[in-house]
């Protein structure tokens, strides 16, 4: 006694059935496109469903960091003097870049605020001194000085409000140390790592600087 096998071919859908299935798929895709994809990815919300579901916020450009809350140090120019509503800040950091690693370190400055800087690396690094405007997407950075360097000393006046600072990349297989010291009318600092992590850094007020009495 053997088991019978059904060798009949599976039923072939009729052209009408295929057309219905195709139309159904297209309709579902179009609904998803209008209610989910366009609001979430492009901020286009023709039916208002994206706003109701909170998807529209997903299409907002990613700002590099949130704009500063509270105090801002905006200069008021009076002839040769610029006065600020607070004291300048001071910061000094040392970073270790492993082989092929990069790091960005940037300060929050409002338009026309000034910063002095000196940085030095133990070996030449790929370098880009640049800024990101508040609220602009991360890929809209403005470069001020981009070339391999081992050190730089200078002053900087922010051309727009945002975060301004350095990209340092270790181009080789040995570890490089970068030491940066700044003083200026910034309100905070941000550190961005090659692996996608980021940290906010506090900057020091003048009260932390020891006063010499000779």
């Amino acid at each position, binding site marked *: 006694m053997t088991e019978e096998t059904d060798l009949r071919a599976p039923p072939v859908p009729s052209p009408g059935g295929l057309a219905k299935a195709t139309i159904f798929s297209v309709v579902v895709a179009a609904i998803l*496109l209008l209610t989910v994809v366009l609001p979430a990815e492009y901020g286009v919300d023709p039916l208002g469903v994206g706003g109701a579901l909170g998807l529209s916020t*997903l299409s907002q450009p990613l700002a590099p960091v949130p704009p500063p809350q509270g105090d801002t140090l905006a200069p008021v120019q009076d002839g040769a003097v610029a006065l600020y509503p607070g004291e300048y800040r001071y910061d000094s950091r040392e970073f270790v870049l*492993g082989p092929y690693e990069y790091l960005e370190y940037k300060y929050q400055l409002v338009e026309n605020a000034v910063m002095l800087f000196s940085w030095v690396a133990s070996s030449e690094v790929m370098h880009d001194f640049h800024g990101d405007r508040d609220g602009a997407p991360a890929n809209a950075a403005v470069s001020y000085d981009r070339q391999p360097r081992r050190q730089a000393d200078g002053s900087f006046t922010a051309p727009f409000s945002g975060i301004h600072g350095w990209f340092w990349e270790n181009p080789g297989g040995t570890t490089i140390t970068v030491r940066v010291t700044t003083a200026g009318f910034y309100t905070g600092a941000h550190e961005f790592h090659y692996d996608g992590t980021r940290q906010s850094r506090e900057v020091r007020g003048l009260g932390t600087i020891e006063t010499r009495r000779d």
Partner: protein
Amino acid sequence: MQNMMMRVVAVSALALGAGHAFAHEDFRVIGIVMSHQDSSIEVQSRDGTMTSIRLDRQTLITRDTKTVAAAQLEIGVSIVVDAYGDSTDDLLALDIRIVPPIATQ
């Protein structure tokens, strides 16, 4: 009617697919190739972390600034991968540089 339907399908597919290109961030993964299959590699970083990274036809693979075949991504070679994705669990390689052996920690 059929042409119209094809256009709708094509536009929908493009829109759905194009969404993947947005809202991603850049990541760099530095380490040693531990496995290589057709469209993905596993990389062990110096701290021991394993990261799986997808490759596609646009992934540029270089050695000494010259483009090389994906077959050069042999197990044990040191690489620097610039990729994008939502997180390190979802990365697509944009550029892969084959570099001299990186000293382990």
